[in-house]
């Protein structure tokens, strides 16, 4: 595997040499963004759920920006061949399809739809004296979810 004509840029086989200045800029940006995400995490806007969502989206947004910087400049994806770009976009995008699973976790609470929501006293199962063992009653209880 030897290669002696590096600077020749012929067609889509070329491998771009990323200039040092761009690498330095990227590195500085990454450090700044890291400081920003640490700083942003100290904010506490309020207890409402949408503040929490906002804060998380902000943190993830910064992380995605950093990731894009690393992929584009450090990994040189900006100058990669179209085929490599297809793998980058396809591969990094495909893992989000696994989040399809959230349809399950998001809608479990709605179930069962009718018939279950009768008066509160009978809505929850009664587990009286399964055995004399009090611990056995705890078997079914989920750790109290928020």
């Amino acid at each position, binding site marked *: *595997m*030897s*290669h*002696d004509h*590096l600077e020749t840029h*012929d067609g889509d*086989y070329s*491998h771009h*040499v*990323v*200039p*040092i200045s761009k*690498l*330095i800029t*990227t*590195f500085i940006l*990454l*450090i700044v963004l*890291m400081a920003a*995400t*640490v700083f*942003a*995490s100290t*904010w*506490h806007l309020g207890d409402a759920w949408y*503040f*929490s969502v906002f*804060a*998380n989206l*902000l*943190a*993830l947004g*910064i*992380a995605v920006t950093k*990731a894009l910087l*690393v*992929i584009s*400049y*450090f*990994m*040189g994806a900006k100058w*990669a*061949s179209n*085929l*490599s770009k297809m*793998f*980058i976009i396809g*591969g*990094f995008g*495909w*893992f989000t399809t*696994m*989040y399809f*699973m*959230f349809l399950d*976790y998001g809608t479990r609470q709605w179930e069962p739809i009718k018939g279950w929501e009768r008066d509160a006293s009978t809505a929850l199962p009664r587990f009286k004296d399964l055995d004399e063992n009090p611990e056995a009653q705890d078997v079914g209880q989920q*750790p*109290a*979810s*928020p």
Partner: protein
Amino acid sequence: MAHVAKKIPLGEPGAVFEQYEDIHQQNDSYVVGMWAFLVTEVMFFGALFLMYSIYRWKYQPYFWEVHHELDWRLGALNTTILLASSFSMALAVHFAQRTQKTKQLMCLGTTVLCAFGFLVVKGIEWSAKWEHHHIPGPNFHWTEATVPPNVAQLFFSLYFAMTGLHGVHVVVGIIVISVLAILVAKDNVMVKGDYIPTELIGLYWHFVDLVWIFLFPLFYLIPR
């Protein structure tokens, strides 16, 4: 046969592996192969991130309480170290492309040093967990009244699984980069004048960095 019109003679073997026609095909194949491998790595860590998301979503307030056990300063230090290592790796690729061997070696050395630094900080963190009995298992000990011990254990299970797997990748990276540096230093035929090995290993190392970029806010900061 009708569909075979003309034949081209095979290329000269030697510089190029025999299955390839020319150096461009070979280099392109290696780069595409590396990206395809990184896609599998994305899915590998992706499953863990998915598990994390599900449990975080289910136990958000508890996770927020538990994450105070992790020191964000050490996390930020490690992020800086890893970003610096990634930067020096990018420089190493740059110098490899320009065939500046000494500078390339210095950059590779810096990367390995940074990686060791990362592991040392990680080791400090983990030993603190060991002392506080925060390793999941029968000896797990949790005193905080506001969080059920089982959820705390779940958090630490995820923490050790994800940072542990990332740590394994760092160790692999150290080994691979060291081998590369030695080969470059010895002018081995496999790497002499060829920047592709450096570029491929660089891609891997940047991926390790990428994973940590997400792990840091998700475990050490947990915004609310």
